[in-house]
């Protein structure tokens, strides 16, 4: 008896792709965008001169990084109902993933902003720009380039971390594989196909990272 049932592989390709396209990828995309927005806010809070504001952001990042993502997911989905807040699986998944990404990515964004030379801020001020304009027109475009490698890490981790939401009944790639595998007991085959799908997505993202880095570096000295 062969370990891999090739007929099952062929017949599962479609349903698993469905789980990828309708579960994993949208979850990743939405959580990453929301997480990035949160990360920018947190980074600016950390960098603000106000002690309290900075301390709040620091505490947030510490808690997010100091607790398991699976636990954060359970708190949102199973825990919040005790407080009278009941959310469906999908919103729960997106909230937990976004909050988590925001915490991790904020450190990358903060580091990138700090890496923009002091002279750039000064030049922006001397041509009359205020804080917001300086940030938008001078600092963030340069910080973006610096932040691409660490943020790519976050994104690629996120793709795989979405598999955790299979535990709260969101139908994504891993859950789809479980559903098909359970009645047939072909776990090796189905999980193998799912693994290949995850890997291909991450390969494509790595390729995109390289392209993006090249594009953003075109005006920077070699």
């Amino acid at each position, binding site marked *: 008896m062969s370990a891999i049932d090739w007929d099952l592989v062929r017949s599962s390709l479609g349903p698993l792709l469905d789980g990828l396209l309708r579960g994993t990828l949208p979850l990743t995309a939405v959580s990453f965008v929301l997480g990035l927005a949160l990360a920018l806010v947190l980074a600016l809070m950390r960098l603000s001169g106000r002690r309290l504001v900075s301390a709040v952001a620091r505490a947030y990042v510490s808690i997010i990084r100091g607790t398991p993502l699976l636990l954060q997911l359970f708190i949102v989905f199973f825990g919040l109902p005790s407080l009278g807040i009941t959310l469906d699986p999908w919103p729960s998944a997106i909230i937990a993933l976004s909050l988590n990404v925001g915490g991790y990515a904020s450190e990358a964004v903060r580091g990138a902003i700090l890496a923009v030379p002091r002279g750039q801020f000064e030049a922006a001020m001397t041509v*009359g720009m205020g804080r917001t304009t300086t940030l938008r027109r*001078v600092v963030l475009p340069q910080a973006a380039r610096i932040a691409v490698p660490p943020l790519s890490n976050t994104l690629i981790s996120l793709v795989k971390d979405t598999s955790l939401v299979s535990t709260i009944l969101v139908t994504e790639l891993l859950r789809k594989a479980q559903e098909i595998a359970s009645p047939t007991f072909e776990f090796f085959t189905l999980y193998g196909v799912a693994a290949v799908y995850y890997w291909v997505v991450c390969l494509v993202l790595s390729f995109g990272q390289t392209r993006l880095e090249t594009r953003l570096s075109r005006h920077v000295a070699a």
Partner: protein
Amino acid sequence: MTAPLLEARGLVKSFGANRVLRGVDVAVPSGSVTCLIGPSGSGKTTVLRSLNGLETPEVGTVRIGDVELDWATGPDARAVSRLRGQSGMVFQAHNLFPHLSVLDNVTAGPVFAQGRPRAEAQEEARALLARVGLADKADDYPVQLSGGQQQRVGIARALATRPQVVLFDEPTSALDPELVGEVLRVMQSLAAEGWTMVVVTHEMRFARQVADQVLFLDGGVVVEQGPPAEVLVEPREPRTRQFLQRLLEPL
């Protein structure tokens, strides 16, 4: 006699326990060129950066045109930016925006900060680039230019906001020697056009030929000031003489 366009009085500034300015006065008449010279650590760059609030003195006043700031009152960011708006600045390390084209560097102030129409700002920026001899570089990026060209873009950027005074912080100190001349020539022509300029520099020949007054600083005070023919040729103070001697004979 009319009041000077720029006037700073009693500037005092410390970095920690180190008192870098101990009561500096500067008066710059409209249309004149003032050179600040002195050994490193003398406070000349700190004086220049106090004129636009990149440094915040503890005590002293700065007035440019009709905008005045009393540092002792701990002015808020808006008051400082109002003063800053009166001047333009050219940096030692040019500090051009690397992600913007040459043209966009020059229009950044007028468009992003002053809210002027882009088309009008671009037209003016092209004229300024022609003025510094870089009309054909408008679409290049800073990284594609030589050091001297980058610094000339820096000058065009500083002029683009239509400042009353242009501040130069050692504009040629970071350049290869053969590129110094092209920058100084642009500065000389601006002076001839009547721009009011305050220049921190080690280029004594430039100070000799272009400055209307020279201030020699040492230890956070103005030791000697006057026309270049006096301060640079027949200095009264021994410290000035020593400094000039060291420049002439470094070994």
